[in-house]
């Protein structure tokens, strides 16, 4: 498998502010690579450097074996970009948006028309081809922005928070499209703060915060490593939190506290914990659920939450 993007000690400063503080990562061809992190973590800056919009301040960044500082035009001609903010051309129709964009890449008109037709069809936008961009829904605009990013048949598609602000149905529709694209061998780079999105789509991911990489790996591996198979959520009285934690400590792999709710990490078997909980009269309610990436994320970046490790 070949490496399509490689960052070594990559840094970005805005005046004195360090947005990306020396990160290393590799993206493999035909993979979906996720960049996760809370707002302000440095995700957008990192992808901005990949698509040669944001100049790098230090370190190395190679995309398709080319250095971003010296070969922006060549790199950009082989990358597709779906930015965070919709920047479709409001003065043009859906169809014109694709054709005009194809022209920016120097694609011949006949080829562009064929490709635009295929993309509108794929994204279910054929009927809207001659509508003004303003007239179509938010979900459609998003799909059109992705279609636009694919007009020149790029090798890598960069998506910066592709489903932020969309309703659940539109979001799922976009995931479905992205999965199909991945199955066809397209390399995807996805920034998101929706953990569900990352678990659905990403083969490999990094979790960033404050410009550094906190953790990296496959979603399932990260869940196993940091929080285990399952989570028991326990609601109790504030005064009893310490009691509960003390009693359950030997049976679990750590916990996180949000208000009066304890999130207890279970490595293997939840039964011993459940049995104990049933015997407590001060536990109001508890739920056992599979753990997910969100638990890992909160544990690693958990701002405003307290976190504890048992010995």
């Amino acid at each position, binding site marked *: 498998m070949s490496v399509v993007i490689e960052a070594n000690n990559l840094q970005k400063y805005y005046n004195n502010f360090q947005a990306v503080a020396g990160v290393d990562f590799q993206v493999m061809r035909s993979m979906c690579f996720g960049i996760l992190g809370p707002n302000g973590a440095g995700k957008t800056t990192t992808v901005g450097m990949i698509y040669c919009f944001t100049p790098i301040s230090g370190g190395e960044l190679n995309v398709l074996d080319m250095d971003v500082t010296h070969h922006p035009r060549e790199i950009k001609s082989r990358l597709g970009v779906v930015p965070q903010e919709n920047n479709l*051309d409001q003065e043009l129709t859906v169809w014109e948006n694709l054709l*005009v964009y194809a022209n*920016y890449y120097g694609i011949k008109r006949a080829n562009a028309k064929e490709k635009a037709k295929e993309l509108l069809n794929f994204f279910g936008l054929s009927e809207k081809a001659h509508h003004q961009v303003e007239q179509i829904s938010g979900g459609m605009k998003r799909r059109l922005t992705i279609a636009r990013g694919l007009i020149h048949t790029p090798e890598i598609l960069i998506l910066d928070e592709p489903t932020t602000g969309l309703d659940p149905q539109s979001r799922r529709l976009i995931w479905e499209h992205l999965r199909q694209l991945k199955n066809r061998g397209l390399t995807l780079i996805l920034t998101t703060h929706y953990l569900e999105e990352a678990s659905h789509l990403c083969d490999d991911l990094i979790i960033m915060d404050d410009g550094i990489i906190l953790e990296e790996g496959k979603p399932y591996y990260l869940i196993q490593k940091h929080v285990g198979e399952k989570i028991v959520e326990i609601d109790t009285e504030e005064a009893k939190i310490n009691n509960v934690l003390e009693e359950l400590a030997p049976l679990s792999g750590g916990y996180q506290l949000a208000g009066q709710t304890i999130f207890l990490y279970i490595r293997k078997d939840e039964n011993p914990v459940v049995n104990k909980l049933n015997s407590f009269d001060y536990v109001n309610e508890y739920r056992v659920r599979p753990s997910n990436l969100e638990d890992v994320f909160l544990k690693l970046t958990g701002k405003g939450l307290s976190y504890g490790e048992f010995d």
Partner: protein
Amino acid sequence: MENLIKYYNSVNSWALKVLFRNLIVFKKTWATSLAFNVVEPLLYLAALGAGLGVMIPEIKGMTYTEFIAPGIVATSAMWASAAECSYDSFVRMHFQKIYHAIIATPINIREVVIGELLYGTFKGILSGIVIMIVIALLGLVTSFWALLTPVIFILSGMIFSQISMIWTGLVPKIDTFAYLFTLIITPMFLFSEVFFPLDTLPEIVQQIAWFLPLYHIVFLLRALTLGMVGPELIHHFLWLVIFTLVIFPLPQLLMQRRLIK
């Protein structure tokens, strides 16, 4: 030096793709935009030529309407380019994020700026030619030298597009364009011999006028329209060419500084 050359090299086929995008939009709106461009100068001509003109005997052997007609053409061409590369460009850049969308493609920000300047220039040339035809129909063009006026419109378009684009690269918000028009465009409009010869004013005003591009444009257009052609035209023409080339890197430089952080 190499650093400077890249700004002149941005005039290339990539920049033309940006111009092409603007022309597609123009195709949808040309009728309204042109109508406004023609109506305003005609109002000036009617009010000043037919109204005020009756009270003014002759200026250097020209009727007052003949005197102001070429100046009105020049100012219309100026306004067309200046408006395009100020308000309209700012909307594309800031509100519609079109520059951001384009620079994710192989086109770079310098080429985007050139595409915009070419479009502003196109609007100026078009406006100039259309109004030139109108004043010709009104009998205010008396020489075949007028056929050379499009060359002046090219320079005028480039100059005012660039001045506005410099502003677009600098202004914090769209309201700030008022300064461009109040401090630069309007004074130029008033003191470039559009409405009256400057030799009635103190010497110093004439000296300042020499630094205003519109002054040279009006001089050239008036000379070509009325066939007052002589070697001194070369001086004005060269002034415009040199001015265009000297400020050429600025709009690109400022826009690059504004958007690429």
